[in-house]
């Protein structure tokens, strides 16, 4: 039993890390994109011409999911005969983007949804709505950065 864990446990932990990065960050994005989508549909129902502007806002919280995917892919590149310690390290290295990605995506969704109402009232100010939303993303980027650097340290 112990031998099995030693032989395959590392890979399993690493894959768990990759899965968590994709799952949790993806969940945050899904929630965020969903929130904006609802607000965006409301704006479009009043003025279909604003579709392009609100679409950009809707896509914004989607990037956290991409970052999670990115980290997952980088972990995937390391899988194959990992020892237990390295596997655990990769699991921990995946956590920053997984967790921060979730909250960043979710909250960016809320800011972007508020941006949609900004677009509804003052379409010429849409750029500012986009920037407000982009602010939230900074922390996902920082988390992704540290995840990438940590993943790079292993193996």
């Amino acid at each position, binding site marked *: 039993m112990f031998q099995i864990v030693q032989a395959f446990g590392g890979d399993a932990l690493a894959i768990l890390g990759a899965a968590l990065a994709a799952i949790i960050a993806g969940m945050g994005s899904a929630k965020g994109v969903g929130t904006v989508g609802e607000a965006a549909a409301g704006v479009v129902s009043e003025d279909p011409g604003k579709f392009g502007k609100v679409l950009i806002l809707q896509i914004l919280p989607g990037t956290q999911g*991409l970052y999670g995917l*990115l980290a997952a*892919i*980088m972990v995937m590149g390391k899988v194959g005969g990992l020892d237990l310690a390295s596997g655990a390290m990769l699991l921990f290295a995946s956590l920053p983007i997984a967790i921060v990605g979730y909250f960043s995506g979710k909250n960016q969704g809320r800011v972007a949804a508020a941006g949609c109402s900004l677009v509804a009232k003052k379409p010429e100010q849409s750029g500012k709505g*986009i*920037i407000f939303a*982009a602010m939230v993303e900074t922390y996902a980027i*920082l988390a992704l950065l540290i995840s*990438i650097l940590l993943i*790079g340290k292993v193996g």
Partner: protein
Amino acid sequence: MAILNMKRIELLAMLSDSKAILDLIQQSGCVEVLDYSENENDFYKLSMATSVSQFDKFKAVATQALEVLNSYVPKEGGLLDSFAPRQEMTVTDFYKKAQDADAILSKCYGINALYKEIQDAKADIIRSQTAIDQVMPWANLDIPSSYKGTQFTSVFVGSIGEPITGEEITAKLAEAVPDIDFNIETVLEDKNQTCLVAICHKDNAKDFEQALRGIGFVTPSDPTKHEPQVRIKRLGAQIEKCNEKIAENEEKIKTYAEFRGDMEFLVDYFTLRSDKYKALDNISMSDNVFVLTGYIPEIYVEGLTKKLESLFDVAISITDPDPETEDIPILLDNGKIGQTMEAITEMYALPTHHDIDPNKAMAVFYYLLFGLMLGDAGYGLIMVLACLFVKFKFRLEPKKAATVNYGLLCGLGTTFWGIVLNGWFGDLPAYLANGLKAGGANPMSKRSFFEAMETSDATVVFLMFCLIIGVIHLVYGLCINIYNMWKHGSKFEAIAENVPMILIFLGFLPLIDSQISGVALRHYAVDPAVRHKTVQAVCRGFVVFFDKCGQPLIYVLAAGAALTVLAPALIAIKNRQKFGKVAGGIGAGLYALYNAASGALGDILSYARLLALGLCTGIIASVINQLASMPGNPILFVVIFLFGHVINIAINLIGTYVHTNRLQYVELFAKFYEGGGTPFTPLQVKSNSFKFKEEI
């Protein structure tokens, strides 16, 4: 001069010429008419509100008619046609065409009337359908549902709101009124209701009806005069008629398609008239003359004055506006490259007359940062080709040309970094070299400047590059601020406020090395596994630089910190302020140091997004290629490849656009740019369908 110099124009002319002069000014489009409010010397104003609202109403009519027409006969042409130039028209043609305005307007009214009939017919259909639904349960009844009975019998037509069979009803009634003879016939039994006809002798009608009501019997709310079928048929015919009406009106509307151009013209025409009358609202007049004041960019002054003086009896005076008391509107004039940035700057805020126009200054870094974040030569070339195609296919009007040039330059920046970073649709060359199958070595990898996946050291080295680019960008912003403040005369402040920050930013360079890139950089610089020797050479250069300059730069950082603390006090001394202020300046300086240090760190780290977004595009592109190669079939490869990369381009273009703007707004603009200017809104010809041929 990127922000155009504004002059104030004051014009006095005969009242009889007022409309002609305003027409000319509108066509020239270079004067922002101001409200002339000095009501002295018997000058008065004439309210144009009635005319303006009249024109706005006509415009609304024409706009609605155009919308209706476009919904029934969609305008041909795709996305590309939006780049096509507007039709040119001479002023004479314009007036000739304007004479037909009434005729076109009546056509618009015609379309709107037809459309209203369609809407009414649609409402009628819904009404009839509801009525049919109500009478439908009675479809099998062969007497009118309002039928009350014969000479000796009473007939009750109605329903019970629950599923119940005829036998059950008979049983219940027999129990309730055992002495009465009656007959029950059900017309419909479904899960919501049971429709039935009950007959009894007239003498027993009252008792029987009470018994019926006792088991939940109700009569229909809208009983029919004839058999229900008659009503159903009548309503059906009505719906049919409405449908015919709708089809007929749609056909009629379609015949108006040939007037679409005229209607577009009409919308523009009424916009023009409405704008002009709004301007007329601003002028003051006496019995014989009128006065108009406004702003005019200096470069147009001569042309307009000459033109006006040659055609009319006018007295024009041009004066300098006072920037301290007036909110002088802003009009920008940049070269071809600077112009492409104007939309980005406007989204933030227009400059004021105290600001420098940031457009030209930000352009260089903008496209470099954009390119670095997208960083794929394949994607860049697609952008370049698409923009070149549009550029050569259409004779673009200036605003659209700026948009296309913006795309073109973004594409060039992306191609540049794509070549440097060796991204060609991710790692497509590797698959091409191997017959679209996985596992080939990237033949271009020798030329690669950086391959993120090659070693983990490379990622760190790339991060270092990104942060160094950030430092350069930030120092650049501060240098612009020095230039701007120097030009406005506060030379001492320019140096005292900015140089310490520049020193602090430069002082952060060795910190980047020691805290982030140190080990990885030194390892990468000598790693024999690194394929690209030039990169290694560059990295060795960095190692030498950090080893030699690291220590001195720490002193620079310290000097910057010390100067930050002293700067407010120095400025106070220079302005010969009291000792208390100077001492207070030291406190302010310490606070500024705290802000500067944390701010500088945040600013520099923000450029890590260059790495994150660049990697995001590149790695996902590679994954797409990997997926495409899995089936091992060239056709499937192409299909998956196209689908995947189109999505990857779309998502990353938006991300890159947003984050490049963010770096401009938050990191760069914070260093030197305030903004908040009022845009120059001249009285002009705002039209979508045509433009005047004459340059006035």
